[in-house]
């Protein structure tokens, strides 16, 4: 019965929460390697904490799914079929709706063209120009500034990324940051600046957009 030993649970709770002194840690670890029942209690508490974690995260996931359903209902762009009720003839209303739709579509199209002009390459293509390793373990090895700058670059937030990448190159000689700076310039249509960086010998092996 591993979960009914008060003394074991007390010390293991403290151990799991990182509250033990050095002497207590030694004592716990020594018992874990020699006392099977103590070890079973420890493993059960660990499983319990992960079970509690799953339960909590599941609850949050359900909450998000509820938000999604609510958003889906309020912002659905699916065409609503007429229910077959009486049709009221209001030609002026149709014209007004058509005019509004034309304006909205024009603005939308203008925005789309604007976006494309700014990025100069498709989002999928952009993935070829991400060279740093984004796996969790490696992410920790990046400095704070690198993390922010690289993240800005990854999400193509070039305006925010450029000054940080410049700083990384100037202060730390971060080659990846310099390469990303060149790509940022290219994506923003600043070809001369992009060439100045990307044509350098150090980027011979790097993929280039031109």
């Amino acid at each position, binding site marked *: 019965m591993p979960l009914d030993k008060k003394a074991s649970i007390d010390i293991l709770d403290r151990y799991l929460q990182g509250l033990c002194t050095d002497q207590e840690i030694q004592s716990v670890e020594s018992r874990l390697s020699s006392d099977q029942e103590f070890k079973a209690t420890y493993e059960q508490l660990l499983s319990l904490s*992960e079970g509690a974690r799953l339960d909590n995260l599941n609850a949050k996931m359900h*909450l998000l799914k509820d938000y*999604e359903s609510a958003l889906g209902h309020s912002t659905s762009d699916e065409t609503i079929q007429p229910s077959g009720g009486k049709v009221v003839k209001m030609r002026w209303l149709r014209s007004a709706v058509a005019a509004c739709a034309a304006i909205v579509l024009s603005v939308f199209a203008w925005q789309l063209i604007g976006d494309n002009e700014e990025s100069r390459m498709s989002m999928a293509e952009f993935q070829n120009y991400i060279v740093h390793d984004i796996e969790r373990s490696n992410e920790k090895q990046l400095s704070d500034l690198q993390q922010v700058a690289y*993240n800005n670059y990854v999400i193509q937030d070039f305006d925010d990324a450029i000054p940080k990448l410049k700083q990384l190159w100037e202060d730390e000689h971060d080659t990846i940051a310099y390469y990303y700076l060149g790509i940022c310039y290219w994506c923003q249509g600043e070809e001369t600046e992009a060439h100045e960086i990307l044509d350098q010998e150090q980027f011979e092996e790097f993929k280039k957009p031109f």
Partner: protein
Amino acid sequence: MDWINYIKTNENKALNEIYTEFRAPCLNWLKSSMNVDREDAVEIFQLSVVILYDNIQKGKLTQLTGDVKSYLFSIARNKSRELHRRYQKEIRKDEFLNPLVSYIKEESVIQKENLEERIDNSYKALQILGDPCKTLLQLFYYKQMKMDDISQLMGYKNAATAKNQKYKCLKRLQSIYTDHIIKNDAIG
């Protein structure tokens, strides 16, 4: 906006705001940039928000070096890459492990042997246990709250009373393991 503190103090409201504010840009980015279809994009975004929440609760994320959007997108990017890797292995979507279990499994400090089964058993036992024990154990073992805070939050007289209640809850949980989970496993 101090999202970390907001999530800690008013978690559901904060999650709602994060969801509403970043859903559209993240979905658009996942679809266009990561080549993910809409259904997968929604799942990845939801999982990313939950991971953000978990990292804050577990104390792994105490300070954001950038903005919360960059952090979320970075998680979403990792998850979409994982998804592509799974599709490349030609695993059918209905054969995927529950993404939350899969996430906990890869993050867990527990030895991996039978981990999925052990997490699942604890999860089931907690459902049978019900409240207030479930909440008390969650506050202590997941959110790592102190007994003083738990007693205040749950209306116990003091920390000692809450601690005593925790022992009783653990004993009940043990009986559930023995009576329901182990027996069912033996039958199954």
